[in-house]
């Protein structure tokens, strides 16, 4: 007997969105990686050159490869390596989707404190995702 414990509505909705999104993201990630390694789309950095680059720190790496920080990869999705950023960004953005869905439920339930907490969390994740926050060099 499993017991009568039943999670809250928002918890089940969150689980549903997360489950679907995670599966889509992982399939997508595998497919774009296959596109990349089989060179169906030519990569920005030739794959053979990677071993001479992945030992550099991120600042030297970006300078050497002439890659811009932030969302510039979105303009280069015709390149095999940048294409992989799409499912990575999707997986990293999945929590924001789940929280947006949850926000509506908490507002509907008039749970003011949790509506506010969820709203703040969405803002924080959006700020992190926006690329506004810059990292200094080392």
């Amino acid at each position, binding site marked *: 007997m499993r017991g009568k414990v039943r999670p809250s509505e928002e918890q089940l909705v969150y689980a549903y969105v997360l489950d679907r999104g995670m599966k889509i993201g992982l399939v997508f990630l595998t497919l774009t990686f296959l596109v990349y390694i089989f060179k169906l789309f030519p990569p920005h950095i030739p794959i053979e050159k990677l*071993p001479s680059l992945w030992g550099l720190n991120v600042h030297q790496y970006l300078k050497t490869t002439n890659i811009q920080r932030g969302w510039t990869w979105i303009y280069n999705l015709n390149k095999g390596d940048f294409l992989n950023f799409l499912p990575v960004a999707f997986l990293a953005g999945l929590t924001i989707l789940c929280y947006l869905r949850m926000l509506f439920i908490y507002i509907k339930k008039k749970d003011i404190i949790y509506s506010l907490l969820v709203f703040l969390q969405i803002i924080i994740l959006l700020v992190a995702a926006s690329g506004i926050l810059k990292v200094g060099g080392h």
Partner: protein
Amino acid sequence: MILAILLFLFNPLWGAETSLNEVGANSLLPWWAWPLLLFFATFILGIIAVLGGVGGGVLFVPIVGGFFPFNLDFVRGAGLLVALCGSLAAGPGLLRRGLADLRLTIPLALIASSSAIVGAMIGLALPKNVINILLGVTILGIVAIMFIAKKSEFPEIKEADALSKALKIYGTYYEPSTGKEIEWKVHHTPLALSLFVFIGLMAGMFGLGAGWANVPVLNLLMGVPLKVAVSTSKFLLSITDTSAAWIYLNSGAIIPMIVVPSILGIMLGSIVGVRVLAVAKPKFIRWVVILLLSFSGLRALLKGLGIWT
């Protein structure tokens, strides 16, 4: 098998970082050998992580950072994504079974994810030797926590604190071993929230995931039953690591050739690990995890100090 794993992971050819970078650049190995080795290594780490009851990220960063020719910036970025994908995969089941609790997670995640952003920014701005020293000290600290932290399956809470009452943080879950529904509530919420500032910082700075710190705080400090603490911690990582992962992604510290084989390897390893769990000897595996972490933590520390380069 364990001996083979150790030999594989601690192959002296993959010794020092400077020489490793040269190994990477001047390697006789074709380019595809490294992601393939990474896939197999993370597959094994995925099995060990499940059997040892630790997250993939905490094993991934020190071991891959110490024994592969990748810069620690990219290893930490990949480590966060590995931990993130593991928690995204586990989240739905834990939420549906009522083991992970959303009301408990939301305030903690807000604090931890905010500080994880700061941690990620600090981590990417610090020199590599400083990061290695801090990583080494942290990993050795985690080993100490694994040794000394006790666990309480069903902590007794006399009275919930005012903040947790206001936030309505309490719940019930079904415990199959006793066939009973266990009610739980929490205390010391303000102190726990302040500790999550540091947990988030560490998670973001080192890309480790933070289950090793979440569980003791949830279980021992707040009094959350062990199963709910472990499950909520796993789910919590999906939010904490998301914010830090964005910082690494936007800073360019993501190389798909490192990230994707790692994610796929560790997830497949976790699936196999769950099956092996039924026949494994948990105490022995726990010692393997402690040994692996001690060795790689020491290596990171000595590398940072310039003693073992």
